[in-house]
């Protein structure tokens, strides 16, 4: 009985269209890449700075736009539609930080925003730092040999 119920559930639950989702993620992620390259080229010409500084400016711009659109409320709909096309670029990191800050805002400045802001995006920082430490240690040992 239980098994047949599960069969009915799996038959009627909406199937995630893997191919369509991948195409949407490909196009939206690709457009983010083009926007990034466009901003880098633009900042190098307009502000007359090196490519390295323009890269930092580009990342800060994207983070700013992502935070602004999240607080205005319509970035969530975009993320629901594009999924990984917006989660994997740096906008996803800013979106996670911003939505956690908004969500816990009413619990107070320190106990709400301060303690919960990095709730979702903290995993990225922690695993990034730990793995980069391990990998650079490996590189160091390889260099010594």
């Amino acid at each position: 009985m239980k098994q047949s119920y599960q069969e009915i559930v799996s038959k009627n639950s909406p199937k995630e269209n893997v191919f369509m989702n991948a195409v949407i993620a490909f196009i939206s992620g690709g457009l983010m890449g083009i926007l990034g390259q466009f901003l880098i080229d633009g900042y190098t010409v307009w502000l007359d700075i090196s490519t390295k500084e323009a890269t930092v400016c580009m990342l800060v711009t994207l983070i700013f736009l992502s935070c602004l659109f999240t607080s205005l409320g319509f970035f969530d709909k975009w993320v629901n539609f594009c999924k990984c096309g917006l989660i994997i670029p740096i906008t996803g990191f800013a979106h996670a930080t911003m939505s956690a800050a908004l969500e816990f805002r009413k619990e107070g400045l320190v106990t709400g925003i301060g303690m919960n802001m990095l709730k979702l995006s903290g995993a990225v920082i922690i695993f990034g730092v730990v793995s980069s430490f391990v990998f650079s240690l490996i590189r160091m040992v390889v260099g010594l040999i």
Partner: protein
Amino acid sequence: MIYLNAFIFAGIVCALAQVILDTTKLTPGHITVIFVVVGAFLDVFNIYDRLILWAGGGALVPITSFGHNLTHGAIHGYNTEGVLGLLSGTLDLTAAGISAAIIFAFFMSLVFEPKD
């Protein structure tokens, strides 16, 4: 030409993440962590630097470049300052991004009401 490369590279990374998300039970949090670790690994033998030369902004926008910058900073710190540089250099290049996200998120959460 670099715009086409940027589109293809960023698109492939995002589509790959989407396929992993749809076919396994991993959450978006797992996926971003996996991509950061992959980016950190690809910098060990300077593979990611070549990808950045090829794809430009397309390789800098995805979260893999976050991991790449972490390892890059740590290795650069080791080369200039020795073993202590491994610790002090790690967040050098990504500090701007992390600080910007925290500062913008803090002030905007004070200004805006959450929309549900």
